[in-house]
């Protein structure tokens, strides 16, 4: 007989387990619609690999894991994917989450499975990959991916493998019936884990309130080195860290993992799932769930497909909705009220509790803490619940953390014993979440600060670069000026001289309207003069060629013609400039084409405004008539030319439109009163 240890605190609530132990496990059957949330475990949600309308087979992977701490989702029966959308899930928030919805076809057709005749032949990595691909996540309640838990770092030695069959929470019997009815599969699964982890010892821990399960497992473990350890019933001995302390006497360090002291824990449900996945190749698509409470006519345990709506399962057990105030997923200590009876069963749904009216009444209102210290006595983690309560009320997060808030397992023992009915756990849950939120916010604000500072540095750098460039340019100019002054006029640098000349010219150009005009006129005059010179030389050359009878005559002739045309254009431009010049230079907008355009437009508008309305209308009419005339001409010419039908039609349309406008304008001119 091995030595059993005890952990601090703990409570003995009413067990209420017999109600659901009257019948063997029943099969819940295939519901018409299955809703499979993509995140049924701790870690990243899976990502769908099927499309709406696609037919899927039972056991086919429909969503693949995203990242290391993630597991896939499989189709629990054959059917068609009818939707991939947000649905309400079993979560205390009542929020929606992405789900794959499958309409079952009732044929329950299996996908091909990869079985292993002898798992001993498989490599460690292969075994872990199969466990992961089977979608197994801790079925005791938390839903931590089993493969992650089992991937021990090389070099770390597992001394003790613990199979958790404690099931300490009231009402729940899912693990109990599993141990009674399928002890062989549990032992076989434990042997797979033994092969995988090579632990020093393997223990199955069961509370002494389950004699049938103990007897069944002892019989099944006969001849193996697996030991079934029985210990007194006490809540919460099923907590991982508590069970480890009971069986080994060792405590998991605060903030540490069981593996730190060489222990790995697996729930019996997960062990059966691992067995099925390795030996039969079956992924995790169903689980055993207890349906109990006074509002259930035939309480008991069901093998239920994941994704089954709770409503469907409850109907199987004879649910009397009128007697039920609230539906709880999980047990009375750590469970939560589900937002709706239609949410799906997931991998962690170990119990549906539908209490009747007299059962689980609302606690009477909380009173002030009387500092009785009962909570501290009951706490299995030896925390100081009433201290934590004060800090939580005052939102003193630093103190909460220094009082090991994060070691609290949210077992509810403190609330249970509290004579003032203070919902202590609720405070811890809220505070934990708030602390995590603050940490996340702080990380984010740090990130923003870094980005802000980086941007600030970048702007400064750019500014500095700019000023440096400006300074360099100024300096260079000064140096040149000095050099010019020192060098004297004798040996002037030709390049410098050219630059200076260009600068002087530019300055002259910028100096103002009148000068600008003068230079413009100069330019034009110069153009006329040079073109005339070119024409002269070209003509003399042409004359010479004609005298010699050269064959270049035609080419020269065209050259002369072109130059003559250019000369004419230049002369015309000069003339126009001289005429327009005085008018433009009169305004202060001289020389700036944009300003000139604006000035013109304004002048036109003013003229328009000054005109009498009748004059305006007459002008308009004139314009319209002109346009009409032109369009008619074009229409006639395109008809004569036999243009495309489309163009002719468009022109005809324009003509009719213009005609209408002209007649309207005429009307208006006749009765100006309308305007």
């Amino acid at each position, binding site marked *: 007989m091995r030595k059993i240890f005890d952990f601090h605190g703990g409570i003995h*609530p*009413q067990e*209420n387990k017999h109600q659901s132990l009257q019948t063997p496990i029943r099969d819940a059957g295939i519901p018409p619609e299955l809703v499979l949330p993509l*995140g049924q475990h701790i870690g990243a949600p899976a990502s769908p690999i099927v499309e709406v309308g696609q037919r899927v087979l039972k056991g086919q992977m429909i969503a693949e894991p995203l990242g290391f701490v993630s597991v896939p989702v499989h189709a629990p029966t054959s059917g068609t994917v009818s939707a991939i959308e947000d649905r309400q899930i079993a*979560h*205390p*928030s009542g*929020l929606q*989450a992405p789900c794959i919805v499958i309409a079952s076809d009732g044929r329950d057709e299996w996908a091909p499975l990869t079985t292993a005749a002898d798992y001993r032949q498989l490599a460690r990595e292969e075994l872990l990959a199969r466990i992961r691909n089977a979608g197994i996540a801790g079925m005791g309640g938390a839903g931590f991916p089993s493969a992650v838990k089992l991937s021990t770092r090389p070099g770390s030695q597992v001394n003790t493998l613990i199979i958790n069959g404690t099931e300490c929470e*009231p009402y729940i019997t899912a693990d109990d019936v599993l141990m009674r009815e399928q002890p062989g599969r549990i032992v076989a699964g434990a042997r797979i884990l033994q092969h995988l982890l090579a632990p020093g010892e393997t223990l199955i821990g069961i509370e002494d309130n389950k004699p049938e399960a103990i007897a069944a497992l002892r019989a099944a473990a006969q001849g193996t080195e697996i030991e079934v350890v029985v210990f007194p019933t006490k809540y919460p001995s099923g907590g991982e860290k508590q069970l480890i302390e009971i069986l080994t006497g060792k405590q998991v360090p605060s903030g540490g993992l069981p593996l730190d002291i060489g222990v790995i824990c697996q729930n019996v449900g997960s062990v059966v799932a691992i067995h099925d996945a390795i030996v039969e190749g079956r992924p995790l698509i169903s689980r055993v769930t207890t349906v109990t409470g006074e509002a259930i006519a035939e309480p008991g345990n069901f093998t239920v497909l994941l994704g089954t709506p709770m409503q469907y399962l409850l109907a199987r057990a004879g649910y009397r909705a009128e007697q039920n105030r*609230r539906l*709880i997923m999980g047990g*009375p*200590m750590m*469970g*939560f*009220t589900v937002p709706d009876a239609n949410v799906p069963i997931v991998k962690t749904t170990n119990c549906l509790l539908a*209490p009747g009216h*007299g*059962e*689980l*009444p*609302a*606690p009477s*209102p*909380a009173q002030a803490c009387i500092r009785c210290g009962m909570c501290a006595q009951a706490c299995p983690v030896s925390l100081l619940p009433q201290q934590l309560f004060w800090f*939580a*009320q005052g939102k003193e997060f630093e103190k909460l953390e220094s009082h090991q808030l994060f070691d609290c397992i949210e077992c*509810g023992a403190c*609330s*249970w*014993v509290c004579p003032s009915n203070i*919902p202590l*756990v*609720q*405070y811890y*849950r*809220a*505070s934990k*979440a*708030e602390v*995590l*939120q603050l940490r996340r*916010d702080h990380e*984010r*604000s*740090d*990130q*923003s*600060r870094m*980005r*802000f*500072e*980086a*941007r*600030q540095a*970048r702007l400064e750098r750019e500014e500095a670069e700019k000023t440096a460039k400006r300074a360099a340019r100024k300096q260079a100019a000064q140096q040149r000026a000095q050099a010019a002054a020192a060098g004297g006029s004798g040996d002037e640098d030709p390049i410098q001289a050219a630059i200076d000349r260009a600068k002087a010219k530019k300055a002259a150009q910028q100096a103002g309207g009148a000068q600008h005009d003068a230079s413009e006129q100069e330019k034009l005059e110069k153009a006329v003069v040079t073109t005339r010179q070119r024409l002269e030389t070209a003509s003399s050359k042409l004359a010479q060629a004609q005298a010699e009878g050269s064959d270049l005559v035609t080419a020269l002739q065209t050259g002369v013609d072109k130059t003559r045309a250019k000369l004419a254009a230049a002369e015309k431009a000069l003339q126009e400039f001289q005429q327009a010049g005085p008018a433009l230079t009169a305004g202060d907008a001289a020389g700036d084409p944009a300003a000139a355009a604006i000035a013109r437009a304004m002048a036109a508008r003013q003229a328009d405004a000054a005109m009498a309305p009748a004059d305006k209308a007459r002008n308009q009419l004139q314009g319209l008539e002109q346009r009409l005339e032109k369009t008619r001409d074009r229409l006639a010419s395109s008809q004569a030319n036999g243009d495309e039908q489309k163009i002719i039609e468009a022109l005809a349309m324009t003509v009719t439109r213009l005609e209408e406008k002209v007649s309207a304008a005429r009307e208006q001119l006749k009765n100006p009163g309308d305007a």
Partner: protein
Amino acid sequence: MLEFIVQYPLLSALLALVGLGAVFGAVLGFAAVQFKTEGNPIADQINALLPQTQCGQCGYPGCRPYAEAVANGEAINKCPPGGEAGIQALAALLDLEVIPLDEEHGEEKVKAVAFIREAECIGCTKCIQACPVDAILGAAKQMHTVIASECTGCDLCLEPCPVDCIDMIPQRESLQTWHWPLPDPASREPQVIATDAEAAEDRAA
């Protein structure tokens, strides 16, 4: 030496004290020079408490300048994104009284993230220049977009956009952000499922 002490106990005690004072003074003076702290430690601490939204609602060009102003005696209630919690944290740090948020600078809002309606963006890069944390990506005449995970929700990019194609989308509560609320002491709604009636009677007995 011993004789001197025996002969003039008072004088030697005095000398010893003066000597000690001189030695420690020298050590402290050296330490002050050697381990001089860089920057302004109080402003740093204040800055660490500010939300780093960099929105300028406090009237300063960013959180850091406001932190420096607070270190020099500016009121602690001018940061709307920090809200009540921020004021409380600042008050605790500086040992000041908690005062309500100054309405003039705006009110506490749900956190939002900017979103550019990309089809309407004309690629003018104005929003990039406005964003204090470089959370907008784009190039001239190209579509722009906001890196949602870096956006602080400061609203500064809305105003410069000539085609008004930026929306601030308030962040909805999701499964990732939801958490249990603190229990309401006045509420009679069952919040925690602690036990059942029989057990309660057992306890009473």
